[in-house]
């Protein structure tokens, strides 16, 4: 019984010569697995890059809009201030002109 078992074991573990092209097939399989893994990584990197670009574009546009709005509000503030100052100085001139006594027309002959 044990002799049979030993024989069976020996038969099972005997060295077997690989078929022709076995090495090439194994190497081809390894290469194709690596390529597949690499292309998967590349795809993920591409997706991540594209997402980053889109995110950066959205963020950039948002920041540009915020900055533009700040600039616009500041420009509006400056415009109102400029018109206020212009009005103030026109007011000074207007009041001064209205205050000035008009010379009588008869005085012209004395010049």
């Amino acid at each position, binding site marked *: 019984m044990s002799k049979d078992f030993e024989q069976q074991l020996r038969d099972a573990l005997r060295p077997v010569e690989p078929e022709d092209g076995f090495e090439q097939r194994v190497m081809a399989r390894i290469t194709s697995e690596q390529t597949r893994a690499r292309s998967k990584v590349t795809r993920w990197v591409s997706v991540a890059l594209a997402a980053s670009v889109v995110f950066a574009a959205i963020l950039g546009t948002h920041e540009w809009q915020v900055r533009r709005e700040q600039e616009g509000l500041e420009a509006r503030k400056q415009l109102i201030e*400029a018109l206020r100052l*212009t009005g103030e100085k026109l007011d000074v*001139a207007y009041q001064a002109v209205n205050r000035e006594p008009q010379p009588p027309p008869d005085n012209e002959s004395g010049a």
Partner: protein
Amino acid sequence: MTMNALFRHSIPAIFAVLSLSAGVASAADGQLKLPNFDSLTDKASESVTITLDSALLGLAARFLDPTKPEDAAAREAIQGIKGIYVRSYKFDQDFAYPKSDVEMVRKQLIGPGWQRLVEVRSRKEQQNVDIYILVEQERANGLAIIASQPREFTIVNIVGSIDMRKLHELEGQFGIPKLELEQKDGPKK
């Protein structure tokens, strides 16, 4: 005269004509060359520096709320205006600002096209106000206000087509009183 000599003599003349026409163009568009008042900002107790070119005016106009009377009046007032430049300084001491800088601006207003509309000299309040307009083809294409007191001075330069009627319509806005511009020219009742 050789060709080289001709060029040698012509080039300075061409530059002179170009610089002269550049000066005329600068005066013609109503924009004054305002001195650099940066050094006064530290000395002044209050300072206002406003530089609004046509791009910034356009941007400001987009942020004016037409439902607000003040904003609506401002939008009307800036139509046709290409730039607004204001320099205003207040000091704690008398004449802390160089009068020469103010005079330099005033000298530019002697140029062609500029007309003095109002000259106020108040000895009591030591207040001077000059209002000039740049008249081109019977239209006001520029406005300059130089107002000075011992402790403050203000220069306002508005560039572009100024509609005095619209200025008149600013009455009650921004503290501008009723100017009664039309009545001044006509006979008083």
